[in-house]
Every structure is written in C-alpha cells, then in structure tokens.
C-alpha cells in the first residue's frame, strides 16, 4: 500500500506493507537510520520519533498510522544549513551521550516535552512565567533509557536547552 505523509517537513509518498512498523519503514525504506531499535517493547525509547509533535515509539507504531501526519526524526532537527537545534548543541556541550545509541530518541523525547512546556508558557503570558523543574524533566524523560551516562549530563543538557529556548522565545 502507499502512504503519504510529511517527513521532516517534506512531502513523502512511500510504498509499504501494512504490517510494517514506523521504525522499520523509516530505517529500511527511508534510510533514516538515526531511528534506533533496541527493546522493541516500548521500554527503552531509542526508537522515539515525533508524530504531529508528540513522541511515539516507532518500534510498535504501525507506519500506516502516519498517513497525513507530520513525522519528525533526528535527521530533521538541524536546519538546512546544518545549524544544530539547541537541544543537539546542548547534548554536545554537556557530553550527554557516550555510545550515542539512545541519543536520537532522547533528543526527540526532550524536544516534544520542551515544545509543549514552552508553548504552554507563551500562552499564559499574563500569568507568572512557569519554570521547568528537574522533577518535571525527569518524569517526562523516564521512558528513555541510557546505559552509558548515568543521566545527569542529559538532565544538564535539557536544562541548557530550556534556558536557550526561553531566551529565544523572549526575543521572538
């Protein structure tokens, strides 16, 4: 069957088998291998991609379900000129990865969280600016496993990105 959707802000039309998962289609048919597969049971988060800005586990999400939707993978985060997203830069700056296998999923899960939280904050301009606490970050990121870092560098990277995105938000 053929599915049409938006992939990293570009229209995509792909021939798939109905049984194929989103992770399989992205990795094998689109060759977007930044999508990683590990536990295949929605535990580890390494296959996290964004579908209409929400994080999903590509390993257990049928590709069929993305018809007409917007899919974002790690390959779609840096801009055309190769300028890194603030989260990518923060992961670099804070040494927030070692082997790097969890990193695409980590960054995308964090992006979904920050987009939602910072968006909330912009909507409530009149109210007190809401801080994003460590506890909130940890709660949101608890579905993404990392076996290398011990998580603290990832927490620091997300904090750094929050600060930078808030600054950008204030400027805009």
């Amino acid at each position, binding site marked *: 069957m053929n599915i049409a959707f938006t992939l990293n802000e570009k229209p995509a039309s792909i021939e798939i088998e109905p049984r194929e998962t989103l992770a399989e289609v992205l*990795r094998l048919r689109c060759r*977007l*291998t*930044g*999508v*990683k*597969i*590990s*536990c*295949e*049971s929605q*535990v*580890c988060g*390494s296959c996290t991609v964004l579908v209409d800005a929400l994080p999903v586990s590509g390993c257990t999400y049928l590709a069929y379900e993305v018809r007409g939707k917007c899919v974002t*993978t*790690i*390959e779609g*985060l*840096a801009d055309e000129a190769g300028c*890194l997203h603030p989260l*990518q*830069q923060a*992961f*670099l*700056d804070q*040494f927030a*990865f*070692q*082997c*790097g*296998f*969890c*990193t*695409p999923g980590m*960054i995308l899960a964090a992006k979904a969280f920050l987009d939602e939280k910072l968006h909330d904050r912009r909507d409530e301009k009149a109210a007190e600016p809401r801080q994003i606490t460590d506890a909130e970050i*940890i*709660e949101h*990121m*608890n579905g*993404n*496993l990392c*076996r*290398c*870092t*011990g*998580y*603290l*560098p*990832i*927490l620091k990277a997300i904090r750094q990105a929050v600060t930078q995105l808030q600054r950008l938000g204030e400027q805009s």
Partner: protein
Amino acid sequence: MTAPREFHVVNHSVPRGDGIAKVTGSAMYASDMVVDHMAWAKVLRSPFARAQILSIDALQAKRAPGVIDILTGDTLAGLSPYYGHGVKDHPLLAIGQVRFVGEPVAAVIAEDELAAQEALGEIFVEYGELTPVLDVDSALAQGAPLVHEKDYADGAFRGFNDFPGAAGNICQAVHVEWGDADAALASAAHVVEGEFYFPMVYAYAMEPYVAIADYNPRGRLTVYSSAQHPFMVRHDLASVFGLPLNSVRVIVPYVGGGYGSKSYTKIEPLVAACSWKAGRPVKLQLSVEEAFLTTRGDDARVRIRTAVDAQGRLVARQATIHMNTGAYAENSPMVCRKASNRIIGPYRIPNVKIDCLAVYTNTVPASSYRGLGAAQVTFPGESQMEELAEKLGCDPVEFRLQNLAESGESIHPGMRPIDADVPGDVREAARLLHAGRPLAPGHGRSVCCSCSDAGAHPVTLAMVQVYADGSVSVLSGSTEIGQGSHTVLAQIAAEEMGIPFEKVRLVGGDTAVTLFERSTGASRTTTLMGRAVLEACREAIAQCKTMAADVWGVPAELLIEERGGVRCADTRLTWFEILERYFQMEGCSIIGRAYLRKAGDLDLIPVFWEIGVVGAEIALDRETGKISLDTLVTIGDVGLAINPAMTEGQDLGAATMGLGAGLFEELIYDGQQLINGTMLEYRVPRFSDLAPNIRMKLVQNRDGVGPYGAKGGGEGAVNPISPCMANALYQATGARIRTLPLTPERVWKALQCVKSQQVKTKAPAGA
C-alpha cells in the same frame, strides 16, 4: 611523578570528536548498515538446557518462500567450527548437543528478515532430553552430568592459554596464596565470616549483537560487526575458516554500548558461516531478547573470612569463590583469575588464600562484564571491612585508612606496586559524602573502594600519518564504544604535534587499515593506545627532524624542537613545512609508528591499578523496603584526565551501572528457562534513579604509565557501589544483607527479621 607541563589540548574538555554525528543521527552503527545483494539470517534456538540433537529436518524450511539456505551443525564440513580465545569450546552452531536454552541450533538465510523468521517454524528438530546442571552446586556434585564431555584445543592467543586444564565441570581453577592465612585466622583478634551472592546480570548494550559477513569463495572474508575486540574476532574467524590474517577483515563502525558484553567473538563465526553457505553477504541482527541469551555476567557465591589483630590491622583474608560460567568458557577463565586478585582490594594483607572456580552449567554463557570479576568480590570484601570496623568499635573510614596501601607499596607479591593515592581518595570521598551534614532518619552512608589489576596484556600498536598540509590521522585499532577513545587519542596527537584538535582525524575500526590492538577493554585504551599514539607522534617528529637537518644542510644536533616544529638559529619550520620542502611535492605524508609490548616499564603486570572509590548515602522507605540513592560521590584517580568531562562521565556511568546490580538487576532462572530475559522484566537504572546529589572528583597525580602519567578509568566506580549501599542500609537499620540485588522485597524481609530479633532480645527483660 612527571614535571609540571602546560597542556594545550589534553587535560581540556574538548567536545567529542564523534559528537556531531551522534546528535544528528548520522553516526552509522553496524545495525544501520546494509551491503549490496545482502541476505538476512534468523536463528532457531534450543528449547532445552541439555539435550542431544537426534535429527534436524529442514527440507520444508528450505522450500519456504524467500529462503536461500539453511545452516545446521551437521552442514559445517570444511570449517573448524569451534572457537574461543581461552579454550575452543564454543561451536558456532550446536553440534550434536545443546547446552543451554537459547543456544543457536540452526540458521535460516533468506531474502529478507521476515522470510527467514517465518521459515524457522518449518525446521523440525528432534531432541533427546538430558538432565541439565543448572547451578554451580549441582555442577560440582559427585557424579554430576558433564556440560562438556570432551577436551578442546586451547585458544591460540599468547598470554591467554595459560589456564590450567581442569576436571569435571570446572572450566577454570585459580589459587592465589601468600603468607599463612589459616594460622593468621586462628590467632586473630577478630574474624568475620560470611557467604555472599552477586547476581547474574545482563549488560544491556542498547544495540543488540549484529554482524554482516561477506565470504568470498576466493578466500576473503569481510565482517562488519558490533564487536569490541575486532582483532580477537579476526583471529577466531581465521581459525574457523582456515584463512590467513590478511584475508579476514573485521570492520567495526560505531558501537551502541559494550560494557564488556561485546568483548571477544560472539555471533561473527555463525554469520560468516551463513555467508559461506549461501554465497551471499548475510546480515544477522539479534533482538534484545536474543542478546539476553548470548552473554551475561558471571554470578558468584563467595564464602569469605577476614581477620584483624587487636590494633585493627588486617591480618588475613581467605575466600572460596564459585562463579557460574554458563555453557561455554568465553572470557570467564579471565573473570575467575581477576576476581581472585581483586578480592584483596587496595589493602595490605599479609596472609591470603583465595580459591576461585569458574564452573560450567547449562545456562547462558557468562563472559566479560564491566569490572571483570571485581564487582562480584568487592561486595563481600567491603561488606566485611564494615563488619570488622564495627567489631573494633572504630570508624569504618579510619579503619580502611589504617589498612590501605600507600602509593608505591606492593600488595600482590610480584605485581606492580600501587600507583595511586588510595588513602587520599578515600579521605576525599568521605569528606565529600559527609560534608558536615547530619544524617536524616532512614538514611545511611558508606565509602567503599576497589582495586583492579587493569589494562590486560599490553600489546598495542599504533600509527600516525602526518600530512604535508598540516593535518594528521591517527590509525588506531581501539574501538569507539562510547568511552570516547576517538576524542582522547586525537587530543593526544594534537598535543604532541602542536596542532589544533580539529586538525586530527581518527581512522579506526578496520583491521585491514590499522595495526593490531589486543582489545578495547580492561580500561586500557587511554593508557596503552594513548601512549602508543604519543610515541608514534614522537617517532614522526624524529623523522621530521632528520628531514629538517637535510633541508637546511645542518647537523641534526643544531635543531631546537619547539611546539609544532623546529628552529635552527632564526629560522623556524613547522613539521608540515619540513615535509613540503623535503619532498618538494604537495600531498605527501609520512607514518610514525609505535609498538608497545610487555617490556620496559610495561613489563610489570598490571599495566596500572584501577581504583574505584565511591561514597553513597541511601534513603530507605521502611514501609516498602525501597532504597533510593540520595548522594553519590565518585573519585576518579586517573593520573591525568585527558578529557576531564568525559572522564567524569565514565565514573558516573560506571557507578550507575553498579547501582543497577546493587538494587534491582538480576537474571532469574526458573528451572532451565531464563524467565526475565526482556526489557519489560529486566529493570535497569532509569532517569528517576538519578541521585539528587552527585559529587565527582578527579585526582590527577600523573602517576600512571600512560601518556603524561594518565591511567585508565571507567570500570572503577562500578565495583564499590553495591557494598556502599548494603553498608549504608546496615547503618540505617541494623540489617546486614549479603545477597544482591537489594530489592524492596529482600530489604523489607531483612527489616522484619531485625524487628523480630529486637522483640526477642527485649522479651526476656520484660518477662
């Protein structure tokens, strides 16, 4: 100690060389790779722990759609199908017999993964079930069935095949002894005795085992793999296929985690045999569930006695260690040997007697796991240090300080003296842990340490290629498994050549391109490969100096070396200008090389002592028995941190891995069957396990044999954390637990025991 020196690139936290690739998703791992005309394999696994294979009927599977061929143990004629670097006991597919649930019995090679998977159900295997041996005690019992009924050839690596032949189900026996432990124990002021258990653990490298093999009938074999030790894999493949080393090429792109679990040969011979059979390149991607059935850590039961005199000096340690090695030796003989050394800790103990057995059982083969035998024995050793301190009525940190070896002191006869400031490390850990804070109710604290003979066997060869345009390539056989070798080695080359970090490129992960490096493990890369890269740079510089003397027509003695080049009177040339002038041609390059071997200051084993010093404060929920980590302190005694941020990252990562085995990680067998071999059921540390307070400190005394006095790190902090938590629990509650992990259930039960004993001891007084 080396003279102070100003560093330009090393000892700075430069961003990782593999960073951009890893944050943009462009980093290629073996699991991401495809090659032209590639077929896929899937593996049929044994449902029995011990059985004879009576027959395999694969005719129907072979006719299934998309299937190219089937590989079974009786279709391997022409190959030498047993491999193993210590002992060649491991067939690439079960031959005649299966030895654990999950052992590969047949492989289907098909046009795609699904076709291969579906055809597995069309293979019919008739088994003759045999009584398995499922634990160490039954494997050692009189008349126990033998996991292996024949002797195998030794693995051929020099420095490996020194494992004495053992009998029955004993895979390896190690005896370490000095002084007279029995006499010292008999006359000691205080003796503590106990039996401890460290669980079976799974490393969970997030990228499961994967390989692509391309066997060319003209006698060439190329394998892409997630292996940590490509040269070891090359050796085993050459042996299986009877090929010369120059005809086997092992390529390792980025690796999604290793932690020891990807040491040595895993699925590569099987995948290569699939390609040999099918006449096509073949990819085999294991699932995590299959990885659970491929390698695990050795679980260990340790019966141990430690004794002190009335003044609080350690006088003896005696221990019997039984390690459950599983169905094949893999690296367990080395784990057994190392555990026997590492149980001493960093202490001076005049009388020692250690017996360690690695025992075959019909379970998943055990092998290297971060720390290599140290975590298993540090838990009992450091638990007993705390018990002795209590008997002596003294502070456990002070008791340790009284017995810790000083730098330069020898604790193992015939081995390298201690090359670290362990007393200083422990003092610093205690200071950072307590920090003048009172202890809250339900909290407990402890500082523990470990001491590992690290670096493995020092054979490390490296090249640097110096280009006339000012760039340099480092050709290194070390694998980038996330530990940051590609960054650290480039930093060292940049430092030596006097050029910016960005001018250095790492070339590695290909046995056809780089020289031999024995392994990427035992925390050796910074120390050994780092030093080889440094020496290779120095050799290239020496060549440049000779060329400069030629260019200028002056004797070499008149040249003065300056950072990045050479001066003669008022004229200065960079290394690169020298090359241009010497060759009178653009685009030239020269090679500097270094061959490290067990000689000179690398003759004494170990290459260095890897010290683990950790402090922990736990918070206990008495209602549920759940322990969480409130404060974590790590001390990295690393000589010199080539990249401080990455070095601290190793300490935190190792401590977190240790936390897993300490609190919740354990593979559980129910009879023959591993029952929690999925990530739904095997719990590893998560974000929410992060300690709210983390204090990390690097100690840099430049006291190692590595570059600029550096030593390795990354495995120290994994070892002491579980005894830290067990000791802290004792401090908080009076419950002494000698079995890991410290699950809520186990802790809760121990708390009830303490409570009932308190009631009992109170009862007579009230009666």
